[in-house]
């Protein structure tokens, strides 16, 4: 009997030799083009029958060297890089970056801009959760939910387009405030969306929550203990579905989140269904925050009073010499950021997003590291799926809600 050279696969048996006895394992290559890996994740699964004995994730297919790119862009240009990391939550990325730089610059952001940031970041959370719910459901076999979710996502993208001119790569938050003045009529547009949204969430729940197939595919699946998750670097809704109420919006409030009334939903079942429930409830809480931000929006300027950092108004630039000089300086060489280092964490839809920014006092960052939630979460995949059935892998990894751009950077 000869080996075929492929692990676990034996060559054809000739003659009377007995067929190999004992356990036989097969290695299954899932991805990088598998649709339910939501990008280019590759999982090497070693199977004994239908049971996964070993799982090895292989990442890096989407590595673009964004952290290196930061070092040759000035601070204002670098905003556009952050969009492309977690492309389902671009405004959360923008926010993390701006907060880190603003901390080093000791900039005071006006209340209007802060509330606007909260509102748009929460819309981003809805956007991200809607994509997650639609694709997660389609993976498990519930086709129609996808269409419902993308219907509302389209409304959100239109709101983003109204604000920034872009549907996805918005780059709408800038160091010192916002990129543009909020457009006329945004209140009506957001109000129309948010008035209808809670009933839309009811629709998704009608389709799924009591659906016996959905329950059968998700309840009791994808368990991983809280201790393992904390030790393996998991954050976000995964932890909250295991009963740990950890949310940076509450524990380390930024951008005046402390002024908003909302709850951090938790479940204790710690399975795919609990993660679904947590994210559904997060959507309801986010719409509460959006409503509060919209109704209580303070008046005032939308960018900080810091002429050396924030671009002057177009009108001033054409009439005032000083404004013209500042404009020229900011556009040609950027602005200097005092020496120092900060680690700014925010709660992205996926979990803890941290920007570690090191400045050497010049107009370009010396080093930027992004502690992205998907990278930490993916590390727990082997622990979660080993010993379970291959049919449950898709439900398990879907419940993690990772984005490969966020993982590989």
């Amino acid at each position, binding site marked *: 009997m000869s080996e075929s050279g492929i692990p676990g696969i034996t060559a054809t048996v000739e003659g009377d030799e007995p067929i190999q006895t004992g356990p036989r394992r097969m290695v299954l290559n899932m991805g990088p083009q598998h649709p339910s890996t939501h990008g280019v994740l590759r999982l090497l699964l070693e199977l004994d029958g239908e049971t996964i004995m070993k799982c090895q994730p292989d*990442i*890096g297919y989407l*590595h673009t*060297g964004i*952290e*290196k*790119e930061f*070092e*040759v862009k000035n601070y204002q240009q670098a905003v556009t890089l952050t969009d492309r990391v977690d492309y389902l939550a671009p405004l959360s990325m923008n926010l993390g970056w701006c907060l880190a730089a603003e*901390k*080093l610059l000791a900039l005071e952001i006006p209340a209007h801009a802060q509330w606007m940031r909260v509102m748009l970041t929460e819309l981003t959370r809805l956007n991200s959760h809607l994509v997650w719910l639609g694709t997660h459901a389609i993976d498990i076999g519930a086709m129609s939910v996808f269409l419902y979710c993308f219907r509302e996502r389209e409304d959100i993208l239109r709101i983003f387009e109204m604000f920034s001119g872009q549907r996805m790569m918005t780059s709408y938050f800038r160091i010192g405030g916002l990129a543009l003045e909020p457009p006329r009529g945004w209140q009506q547009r957001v109000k129309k969306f948010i008035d209808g949204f809670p009933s839309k969430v009811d629709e998704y729940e009608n389709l799924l929550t009591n659906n016996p197939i959905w329950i059968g595919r998700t309840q009791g699946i994808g368990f991983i203990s809280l201790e393992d998750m*904390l*030790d*393996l*670097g998991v954050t976000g809704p995964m932890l909250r579905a295991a009963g*740990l109420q*950890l949310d940076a919006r509450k*524990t*380390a409030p930024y951008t005046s989140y402390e002024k908003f009334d909302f709850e951090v939903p938790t479940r204790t079942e710690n399975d795919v269904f609990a993660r679904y429930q947590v994210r559904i409830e997060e959507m309801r809480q986010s719409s509460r925050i959006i409503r509060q931000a919209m109704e209580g929006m303070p008046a005032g300027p939308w960018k900080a009073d810091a002429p050396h950092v924030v671009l002057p108004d177009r009108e001033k630039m054409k009439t005032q010499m000083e404004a013209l000089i500042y404009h020229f300086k900011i556009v040609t060489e950027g602005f200097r950021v005092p020496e*120092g*280092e*900060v*680690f700014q*964490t925010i709660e992205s839809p996926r979990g*803890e997003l*941290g920007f*570690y920014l*090191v400045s050497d006092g010049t107009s370009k960052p*010396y*080093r930027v*590291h992004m*502690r992205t939630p998907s*990278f*930490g979460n*993916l*590390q727990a995949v082997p622990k979660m799926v080993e010993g379970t059935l291959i049919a449950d892998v898709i439900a398990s990894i879907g419940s993690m809600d990772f984005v490969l751009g966020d993982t*590989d*950077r």
Partner: protein
Amino acid sequence: MLPDNLRDRAVAAAVEAFDADAVTGGKFEFNELTLEIAIGKIVSVCGFLKFDQKFIRLSSVTAVDRYPAEPRFEVVYHLHNIEQNLRVRLKCRVRGEDPAIESVTPVWRSAGWYEREVFDLFGIRFVNHPDLRRIMLPDDWEGHPLRKDYPIAGPRA
């Protein structure tokens, strides 16, 4: 030695009391505590911080290249204590010639991928790491892109 202005920080004082030789410096800026740790003491200090001071989460491991200064690299650890909502940053200086540091994977399993990323992009070796391979780049890639002497357009440009 722990700088005097950090003595009233409970975590800094605790690490100093645990091992007086471990802390080589530190600062408290932007409401963030940074402790510089002697390179040989990193695993014992991390173990102390996790099991005694309840920093149960390792948030990230990364590095900064201070080329051409020597020691060239700073390996940076961000720790998180959930109960008390505390964060601390540890820093270790690593030399530029054949850079290596002890792995903290025995303390936190999450260090596995974080350290592989640093190994891949900076070329810092983590001793006792169970699976030290490249993680982002192909296995046959030459060079370590996040080093300051690596050109932005790539090695062949």
